[in-house]
C-alpha cells in the first residue's frame, strides 16, 4: 500500500517565528538589544571598566582617550562606566516595571473580561477613573509615599543578610520607582486583555471546556491566557520604551535614581546642562538611549507583524 505524501503542518508560533526571522529591521534590533544587555550587565564585571562613582578632581571633563574611551564627566568620573551602569538601571527599570505592570494588567483584564456583567463594568470604570488622572503626577506622589518604607526595607535587608550597602542600595533605591511605575502603568494592558478575553470567552473551545466541567481558574489560565500571549508580548515590547522614558523624566526632575548613581535619564540631564562646554557628556548617553528606544520599537513592530499579520495592513 502506498502512503499518500504527507506534509507536516506549521504551528502558528512557527509561522510567526519565520515571519520575524525574515524581518531584517526587527532582527537587527534584537541583536542590538542582546548586545546592549550584555554590555550593560556583563561588561562592567570585567576590571577594564572603571568604578563609575570614583571621582578624580584632577581629571575633570577630560576628552576621549584610551584610559577613558568616552572621556570623563564634571567630577572626573569615567563616562563609559557611567553610561554602562546607567544603562543597567534604565534597562532594569524598563524590564522590572513592565513585568509588574504586565502581571497586574493581565490578571485584572482576565478577571474583568471573564466574569463580565456588573463586576466588569465596575472594574473598567475604575480603570477609566485612573486613566483620567495625570500619570506622571500620580507616579511622583506614589513613589514619594513609599520611599520611607522602602528605606526601612533596605536597612532591614542589610541587617538580615549582611550584604554590603554599596551593592544593594542602588537597586533598592529603585524599588519605589519600580512599584510606582508598574502599579500605575497597567491600565492600557488591562483594557486590551479584557477585550481579547471577551472575544475568546465566546469561542467554541471555551464552551467545550466549560461543558466538560473544568474549573474557572483552569479555563482562565490554561485556555484563555495562552491565547492572549501574542497581543501581550507585542504590547509589552512596545511599553518598555515608554516606561524607560518615564524613568528618565523622573530622574530628570530629580526623583528617580539617587546620586551618585546614574541612569541614562540623569546622564542626559547633566549632559544637556553642559552641552556648550562638554558636548560628549550629552552625546554618548543620548546616543545609547535613543538607539535602545529605536531598537525596542523596531522589535515590537516586528513582533506585531509576525504574530498578528492582519494588523500590519492597517
Amino acid at each position: 500500500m502506498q502512503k499518500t505524501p504527507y506534509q507536516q503542518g506549521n504551528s502558528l508560533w512557527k509561522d510567526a517565528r519565520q515571519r520575524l526571522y525574515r524581518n531584517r529591521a526587527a532582527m537587527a534590533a534584537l541583536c542590538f538589544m542582546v548586545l546592549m544587555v550584555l554590555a550593560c550587565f556583563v561588561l562592567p564585571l570585567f576590571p577594564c571598566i572603571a568604578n563609575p562613582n570614583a571621582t578624580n578632581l584632577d581629571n575633570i571633563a577630560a576628552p576621549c582617550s584610551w584610559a577613558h574611551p568616552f572621556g570623563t564627566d564634571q567630577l572626573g568620573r569615567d563616562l563609559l562606566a557611567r553610561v554602562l551602569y546607567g544603562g543597567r538601571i534604565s534597562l532594569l527599570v524598563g524590564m522590572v516595571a513592565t513585568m509588574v505592570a504586565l502581571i497586574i494588567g493581565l490578571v485584572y483584564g482576565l478577571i474583568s473580561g471573564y466574569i463580565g456583567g456588573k463586576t466588569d463594568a465596575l472594574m473598567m470604570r475604575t480603570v477609566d477613573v485612573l486613566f483620567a488622572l495625570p500619570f506622571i503626577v500620580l507616579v511622583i506622589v506614589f513613589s514619594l509615599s513609599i520611599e520611607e518604607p522602602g528605606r526601612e526595607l533596605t536597612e532591614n535587608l542589610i541587617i538580615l543578610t549582611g550584604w554590603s550597602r554599596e551593592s544593594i542600595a542602588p537597586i533598592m533605591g529603585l524599588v519605589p520607582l519600580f512599584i510606582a511605575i508598574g502599579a500605575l502603568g497597567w491600565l492600557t494592558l488591562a483594557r486590551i486583555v479584557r477585550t481579547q478575553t471577551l472575544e475568546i470567552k465566546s469561542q467554541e473551545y471555551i464552551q467545550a471546556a466549560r461543558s466538560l466541567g473544568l474549573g474557572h481558574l483552569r479555563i482562565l489560565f490554561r485556555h484563555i491566557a495562552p491565547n492572549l500571549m501574542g497581543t501581550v508580548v507585542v504590547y509589552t515590547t512596545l511599553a518598555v520604551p515608554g516606561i524607560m522614558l518615564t524613568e528618565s523624566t523622573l530622574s530628570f526632575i530629580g526623583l528617580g535614581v539617587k546620586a551618585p548613581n546614574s541612569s541614562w535619564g540623569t546622564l542626559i540631564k547633566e549632559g544637556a546642562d553642559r552641552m556648550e562646554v562638554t558636548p560628549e557628556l550629552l552625546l554618548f548617553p543620548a546616543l545609547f538611549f535613543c538607539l535602545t528606544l529605536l531598537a525596542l520599537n523596531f522589535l515590537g513592530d516586528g513582533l506585531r507583524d509576525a504574530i498578528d499579520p492582519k494588523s500590519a495592513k492597517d
Partner: protein
Amino acid sequence: MRILTGIISTLSCIWLSGCGDGRSSAETFAAEKILLIGNNSEPQSLDPHKATAVADGKIIATMLEGLVRPDPQNEAGVLPGAAEYWESSVDAQEWTFRLYRNGVWSDGHPLTAHDFIYAYQRILHPQFGGRYAEMLYPIQGAEAYNKGQADWSRVGVKAVDDYTLKLTLNGPTPHLLQLLLHFTWSPVPAHHVEANGGMLDRRSRWARTDNWVGNGAYVADDHHLNNYLSVKPNPLYRRKDELKNKGIRFLPIVNGYTETRMYLGGKLHITNNVPPEMISYAAAKAPQDFCRDPYYCTIFYRLNTTRGALRDVRVREALSLAIDRDALVSKVVRGAGSPTFCFTPPGAGYQAKAPSVAALSQEQREQKARALLADAGYANGAGFPTLVLMTTSRDVQRIMAETIQAMWAEKLGVHVEIRSCEWTAYKAAQQSMDYDISSSSWSGDYLDAATFVELWRSGGGNNCTGWQNEEFDSLTNTAATTGNAEIRRNSLQQAEQLMLGQHPIIPLYHSERTYLRSARHIRRAHPRLLDNFPLDAVEVVP
C-alpha cells in the same frame, strides 16, 4: 511621507516663530524700558514678614520702601526713604525718624508712623511666627516680646505723632541705618492687612500680586507662575519722576545653565548666577558682560545636631575635617570663592579667628578626622548610619554634594544619601529640621559681622540646626549692647570661635558672585557686597 511633512512643518514653525522682527526679547524689552532679570527662584512670599529668601527680598525691595533707602553710589551710605530726616542720641541708642508728610500707599491711603509700628508688632508677634523676627531684636524689649515674655507696650517703638517714629534700642547701634535697609524693617499697609484677615493671619492675601498695596517705587503687576513676576511704576510714589524704567520682570530660573543660555540667547538683561563650569564659556562668549564680584556670602553645610550620630560633636568635626576644601574650591567651584574654616566672611572691619585645624595639611586633617570618628565608635565608618544630605536642585549644590559624598566615603567610610529638593520643599524641610545635613548658604543682610554670627543664637529663626549655647547667647548680647567697638568685635569673634568649636555647621567657602549683565542695555548698576543694588536706580537703554 508623513514623517517628512512633520519635519517640514516643525521646521517652518521654528523658523516663523524665530523670525518676528529679528530682535531678541532683550532688545524688544529694552526698547520698552522694561528690565528683564533672572531671579533664582519663584518667591515664597511677597509679605516682608514671611519671606526669607534672597530672591523674595529682591522683589520686595522694589515694592516696599523702608525708613531709609540704599544709596546707589555708596554701599555704606543711605538716602532718605519714607523718612525725610532722622536724628539719633549721642550714644546711638535712641533714634527719631520724621516721615514725609505727603507719603502715601499705592491705594492713596496716607503712610504714617503707625504703619511702621503695626509692621514691627506683626513680625515680632509671638503668635505670628515671623522667621526673620530676630532682625528686629536690636529694638529694646523686642526679643522678650517675640518670645512671649513681655508686653508690646514695653517694646521701644513709639509714635511721637502721626509722622514721627521713635526707636529705642537695646544698646548703642551705630549701624542701625544699614539694618533698616533690610526688607524686614519695611512698613506694611495696616489698613490693607486688617481688611485681609488681620495682623496674625499668616495666610493673608494682602501681599498677593493681584491685591498688592505698597509704598515702594514699583507695585506688583502680573504674576505667571514659573514664568515671570512683573512690577510697574507706582503712580503715587514720591520720586516717580526719577524712575528710569517702565517696569521690571523677575524670571524665576533655578537652573544656572538654562539662565546663562537664555542670556546668551538674548532673553535677559541681568542674570542671577553663572555656574562654575560655564564661567570660562560665558566669559569668552560675552566678555563685556561677564561680571565677577566679591560677595558677602558663605557656603556651608548645616548639621542637624538633634539627630542620631550627629549629636556627637566628634562625628560633626570628623565630617568637617574630611572635606578637602581647597580641591572643592579650585576644581568644583572653579575658583569662584575662597576656602574657609570660619563662618563670617572677612570684611566690614571684622576678621574671624580661624580654628587651629586651618593650619594643618589636608592629610593631617584627615588623620585627625579618622581618629575622631574611631573615638566616637565608628572606626572606618563601621556601623555609621546612612545620613541624608539635602540640597536644592541647583546644579552647583548637587555637584558639590556628590564631591563631598565621595570624599566622606573615601576618607571616612561614611556613606550619605543625597536628596535634592525643589526650593520651597528644601526651605520647608530645613525650617522644620527634617534633614540630617543640609547644603546651605548665607549672604549678609547688612554690612556687619553680626548678620552672620547672630544667626546661631538659641532658637533663632534661621538657625535650623538645633544647636544652642548660653555662653554664645550672652556673648552676642554683650556685642549687641556694648557701645565699645573693640569689645563688640572681640565678643563676636569669641562667640564665633565658640560656635565653630562645636561644629553645628561645616563652613566650606566664601563665594563670589559670577553673573552676566548686559553692557549694552544696562546703565548705572554697580557691584555690591550684599547684592542689594537698588533696581529702581538701574536704567535700561535700547
